[in-house]
């Protein structure tokens, strides 16, 4: 059953009335919002920007607001979402982005969605409307509930309103794509860059052995900065500029490269990449390496997967990693190592004592 709840009181009522609920807004992360037997709350109607003052670097919007709308509003003032959330063109919303905890390639420069969320209003498991955080760029009062909601997958409450910090967008960007002979070489260069004074907006590892490096800043310094980057790498590559460059990153962040296959997010560190790549190549149904993309110097992987979910679950466990299915039909979207702990269990019980949002 799907209930459309375009207003906050309706959401509160539904939470009080229903024994089990699952939220959906844009539906762009189908594995997280697909029917699972419980009642689906369609909150896509809860949409619109409530406040935006470019001079404050802050905006507040209802949770169902599409990312596209936010991006357009910000770009008119020369600003952007520094955590670069994926799936904007597929209709992703702010609330879905926070609940799934998703950031994109440019999260490398200033941080992910957790680093930019400032305030949250949500309906808890008892139907109460509560608020945490604030609407200013700096605030240390009370528990950091906004951060807690990042990655909460709707299990801790129904997000209804969100405030974010934003930054001025780089005046110009350009991208350098470099290919290396071997995976180890590419990773070595990746780590060297990450520890250097060279500031990149995106630092992507493209398996089997490529890097995509996005520079941004004032137009007049870019030429010389790209030359410097080139000589740092001691290697030639392909230069992307202008419209073409923008389209390239847009494509990446909409997962066009996954070819419509089931999609998984994995959190990791660079030292795990070689082992994971080898394990994936030896899996029973290996996909080409072009269907994987490591962002943020190897801290964030998005990958397509066409095999059995049990196999991937085991594979990730063996590598000591945790993953989250975004598209596909697994039994549970959480894969790999289980990081459940009493702290999480007890906090969850406080927010949702009757387990209405449990999965």
């Amino acid at each position, binding site marked *: 059953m799907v209930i459309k709840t375009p207003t906050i009181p309706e959401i509160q009522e539904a939470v009080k009335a229903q024994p089990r609920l699952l939220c959906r807004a844009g539906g762009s992360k189908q594995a997280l919002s697909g029917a699972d037997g419980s009642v689906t709350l369609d909150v896509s109607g809860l949409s619109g920007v409530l406040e935006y003052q470019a001079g404050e670097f802050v905006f507040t919007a209802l949770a169902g607001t599409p990312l596209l709308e936010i991006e357009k509003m910000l770009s008119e003032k020369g600003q952007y979402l520094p955590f670069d959330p994926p799936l904007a063109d597929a209709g992703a919303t702010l609330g879905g982005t926070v609940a799934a*905890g998703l950031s994109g390639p440019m999260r490398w420069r200033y941080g992910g969605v957790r680093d930019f969320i400032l305030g949250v209003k949500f309906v808890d498991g008892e139907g109460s409307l509560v608020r945490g955080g604030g609407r200013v760029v700096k605030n240390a009062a009370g528990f950091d509930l906004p951060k807690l909601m990042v990655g*909460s997958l709707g299990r801790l409450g129904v997000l209804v309103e969100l405030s974010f910090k934003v930054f001025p967008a780089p005046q110009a960007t350009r991208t350098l794509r470099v290919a290396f002979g071997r995976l180890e070489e590419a990773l070595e260069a990746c780590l060297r860059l990450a520890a250097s004074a060279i500031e990149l907006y995106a630092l992507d590892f493209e398996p089997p052995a490529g890097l995509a490096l996005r520079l941004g800043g004032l137009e007049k310094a870019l030429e010389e900065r790209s030359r410097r980057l080139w000589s740092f790498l001691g290697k030639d590559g392909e230069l992307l500029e202008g419209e073409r460059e923008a389209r390239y990153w847009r494509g990446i962040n909409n997962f066009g490269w996954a070819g419509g296959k089931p999609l998984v997010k994995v959190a990791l560190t660079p030292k795990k990449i070689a082992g994971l790549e080898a394990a994936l190549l030896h899996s029973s149904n290996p996909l080409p390496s072009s269907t994987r993309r490591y962002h943020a110097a190897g801290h964030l992987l998005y990958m397509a997967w066409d095999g059995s979910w049990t196999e991937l679950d085991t594979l990730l466990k063996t590598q000591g990693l945790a993953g989250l299915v975004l598209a596909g039909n697994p039994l549970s979207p959480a894969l790999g190592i289980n990081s459940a702990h009493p702290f999480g269990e007890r906090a969850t019980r406080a927010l949702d004592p009757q387990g209405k949002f449990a999965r």
Partner: protein
Amino acid sequence: MSKEVLQELSKLLPAGRLLTAAAALSPYQSDALTAFKAKPLAVALPESAGEVIETVRWCAKHQIPFVARGSGTSLSGGSLPIDGGLVIGLNRLNRILKLDPKERVAVVEPGVVNLDVSKAAAPFGLYYAPDPSSQPVSTIGGNLAFNSGGAHCLKYGMTSNHVLGAKVVLPTGEVVELGGESLENTGPDWLGLFVGSEGLMGVALEIKLRLLPKPEKYHTVLAAYDSLEKAGSAVAMVVASGLLPGAMEIMDSLAIEAAEAAVQAGYPQDAKALLIVELEGETLEVEAEARHLSEVIEASRAYKVQIARNEAERAKIWKGRKAAFSAVGRLSPDYIVQDGVVPRSKLGQALSEIEKLSLRYGLRVANVFHAGDGNLHPLILYDGRVPGELERGEELAGEILKLCVALGGSITGEHGVGMEKKRYLPAMFAEADIELMRKIRQSVDPHELSNRGKMFPGGEAEALVRQGLHPLEKRGVISRE
């Protein structure tokens, strides 16, 4: 409390590391907010994570409230002992357990001093970004509990944005791992909830920190204005220009005068306001941005502009700024420092309201603040020996906090709620909000053992006795922001 119970603890900690004598306890009865004092039952000084865990388990078993304590520099009574409770002093857990320059991660014990992380990382061209001005003494554990900030938080955020993971002993004695070494995570951000929880959810035993490459170049500008408003609008102009400086700080005339007298930073004495703007990053980019910034500062009608030509000149500019608070403290026997936040566009309004309040209450207020993120630090000067002045100062401080909330801001940007501001929490949050936070706390800590009586309104309302410089400030070791 029976003797046997304490005896049980003394079996866990060797002699000399469980303090119970009145004289040994007295240095622990306050934090940097010396107005509050309380007498702990004892002070435990563990030297390993294992000993901390055993100590917390002892507290859980006997339901004895405890406070974790780093260096005790909290300005809000966060590390004030609980009457009859245990203080767990963590200064001896001060080892850097791992420093991986390649992956840019440091794993530290909670008693490691903030600045020591950057010192250890320096040979690799790395540093730990959050820079509270207490950084020569305050600990990573304390920074984590208070989500501490500093002058350079505009661009790269506060402590929470630099903590990747933590091993924590919960108030029940269970040990959990929150976060990890990755910048990313799947599932709820439990670590995000723990950081900034003011010691109410347990004790951090081991903390994983993210290190950043040191900026290649700084460009530091000092601009003098003949009014505070002009300095305020200069900040707005910098923001509107699309630049993102690493720091933007303002000082008013009282603060300038005091800082100049204290450290001779070379500040223009006739200025009504000084603005420090610092760009940081890749040399080529900073140089290009600097030209851009010059135009903006010129248009902002600064009557005097000084640009640091080298590291020594940069250090001099910052020295005056960092010393400003203790310097202002010299103008007056006592002072209260507040930490409210307002939206940047309301800075001018907030400052003129504060000036009005200052006149109304007959107390001088100096202003030194993180203009870039709207974080005010009004310093209310008073003389504790003059009857009624302390109460007036306290009332004025409360008015300022309410003003910040009314303007759409917050009661605290970085010093935390602690003991001092707990009665103002309801000015910012509705009953339901506070209720839910309390439920989370009680679910994690059913007997409210961990830092009992802090952050949430209610309980015994304590009166301020006296404010003054932290002993370390008097010795010039640290200064306030």
